[in-house]
């Protein structure tokens, strides 16, 4: 039986000639990731279990990104615990304030993850790196602890859904509109336990930032991972960046998929997920009567350079509407710097927005933009659950950076072409 791209990567890392869906395997890991919220729990478990050594100092990444620069004393204690552990074990890929970025923007940017890798991360959006042609999935802190100690993890080999992409996106749309459209179609458990494999001639029309955004939200459809084939765009992205050699895996021509779903990229429209689930999608144009109090442009989903550029193109000529708070958060220090150099930060400030250093902050209701009761936010983040960004009676709408920026200008949810 032919294997999917995910199955081939898993087989290779388990030292097996082939694997089949449902099979339980133990696989070697190329990278084990944690952040300032999940790593402390992992360190406690690692210590409690009596482990003294990590398996490979070059294959563990610890990124302080959720609550840094620290939002309060408890958060500071957690960061300190991560810092001390990273120092004691000489962890190569430890990123602290000044060097950090939101983990899923940072690790691809820094070449810490690459094509063909098998990666676990104690953060659900670890599925992002599938954009590079890696198998990458979110786990909990105990799995992180076991991974740090042994360099291995157990997996149930996933079945797959093949998303066959055709055409090219209209100018007002980006990767976010694609993944929101797909989640709207299949639901928040539409790909539960499965891999989402993106194939077809439409892949070539998607930039790496689009692909990273699409794979990032695979978890929002319940998927184990999302993955793109390696092509010229991947190779160009990895060029000069990869710290380890990329390995290219391709799905077998006779790979078996549970389901095949055709997606015509040219038919995608600016899409918004309404409260309180990412599957509650509607065209942005139908939500023009939704008044907003806050806009957040950033996160591991949409804090990359193309996202900043999309916001800049709209905000450079149009101020933020009175009564709207617009918070822009470049996802890494390199992106932040580029925003400064290109004059984006000046334009954002002139438009009436604030620009924060990288942090997950408001996305998960941590800090830097918490909502009060009755308030509404449109955000380029990934979840709009009850209370996700603050008070239980607040509302979050999810959109692309272009739609969020256009909405900041009008004060109502607005499709980008209307600005």
């Amino acid at each position: 039986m032919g294997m999917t791209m995910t199955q081939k990567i898993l087989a290779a890392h388990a030292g097996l000639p082939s694997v089949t869906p449902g099979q339980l395997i133990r696989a070697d890991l190329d990278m084990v990731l944690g952040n300032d919220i999940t790593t402390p729990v992992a360190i406690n478990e690692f210590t409690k279990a009596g482990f003294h050594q990590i398996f490979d100092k070059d294959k563990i990444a610890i990124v302080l990104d959720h609550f840094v620069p620290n939002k309060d004393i408890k958060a500071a204690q957690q960061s300190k615990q991560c810092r001390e552990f990273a120092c004691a074990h000489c962890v190569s890929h430890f990123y602290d304030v000044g060097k950090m970025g939101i983990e899923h923007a940072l690790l691809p940017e820094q070449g810490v993850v690459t094509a063909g890798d098998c990666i676990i991360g104690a953060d659900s959006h670890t599925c992002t790196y599938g954009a590079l042609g890696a198998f990458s999935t979110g786990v909990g802190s105990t799995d992180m602890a076991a991974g740090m100690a042994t360099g291995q993890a157990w997996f149930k080999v996933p079945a797959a859904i093949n998303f066959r992409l055709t055409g090219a996106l209209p100018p007002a749309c980006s990767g976010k509109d694609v993944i929101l459209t797909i989640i709207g179609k299949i639901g928040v458990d539409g790909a539960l336990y499965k891999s989402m494999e993106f194939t077809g001639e439409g892949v070539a029309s998607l930039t790496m930032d689009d692909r990273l955004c699409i794979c990032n939200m695979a978890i929002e459809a319940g998927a184990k991972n999302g993955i793109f084939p390696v092509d010229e765009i991947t190779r160009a992205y990895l060029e000069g960046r990869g710290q380890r050699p990329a390995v290219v895996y391709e799905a077998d021509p006779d790979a078996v998929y549970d389901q095949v779903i055709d997606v015509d990229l040219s038919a995608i429209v600016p899409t918004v997920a309404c409260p309180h689930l990412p599957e509650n999608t509607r065209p942005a144009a139908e939500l023009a009567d939704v008044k907003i109090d806050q806009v957040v442009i950033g996160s591991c989903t949409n804090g990359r350079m193309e996202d900043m550029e999309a916001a800049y193109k709209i905000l450079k000529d149009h101020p933020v509407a009175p009564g709207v708070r617009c918070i822009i958060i470049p996802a890494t220090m390199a992106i932040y710097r580029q925003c400064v150099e290109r004059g984006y930060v000046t334009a954002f400030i002139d438009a009436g927005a604030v620009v924060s250093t990288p942090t997950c902050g408001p996305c998960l209701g941590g800090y830097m933009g918490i909502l009060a009761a009755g308030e509404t936010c449109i955000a380029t983040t990934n979840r709009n659950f009850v209370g996700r960004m603050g008070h239980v009676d607040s509302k979050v709408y999810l959109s692309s950076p272009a739609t969020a920026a256009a909405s900041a200008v009008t004060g109502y949810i607005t499709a980008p072409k209307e600005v």
Partner: protein
Amino acid sequence: MKTQGHVFKYPDNVDTDVIIPARYLNTADANELAKHCMEDIDAGFVSQVRPGDVMVAGWNFGCGSSREHAPLVIKTCGTGCVIAKSFARIFYRNAINIGLPILECEAAADEIQAGDRVSVDFDTGLIRDLTTGKTYQAEPFPEFIQAIIQKGGLLASLAEV
């Protein structure tokens, strides 16, 4: 492993943000975190739950974040078992790894009502609604996973190797 208690009933897609809101994740102290378990959708849960009680929910329980704090607070509150139609995959994995008993059973999740008294035999998957007298059979775990649970979680199972 067995449990017996009253049922707290929840809908589909209970996410990890309502199980334990991220605003409390500036600590990893399970007892501190457990004070806020379910508070955004069921403010009375923490004061009403008793050791051995059972959560019964719909599809995709535990969706969202990978935070292990979610199964941990449910366990720390004394919950004996979570029965759902399905679990989000990271929550499922975390529950096994930290030793929170969970079972997937669509019929039980449909028919068992809030407040019913139920007994659950986690080893056999037998669920008994003592209020209605009905029984339900959940699929037992694969052997590989049962071995992890019997050894007391993932790290304990590794330490034994």
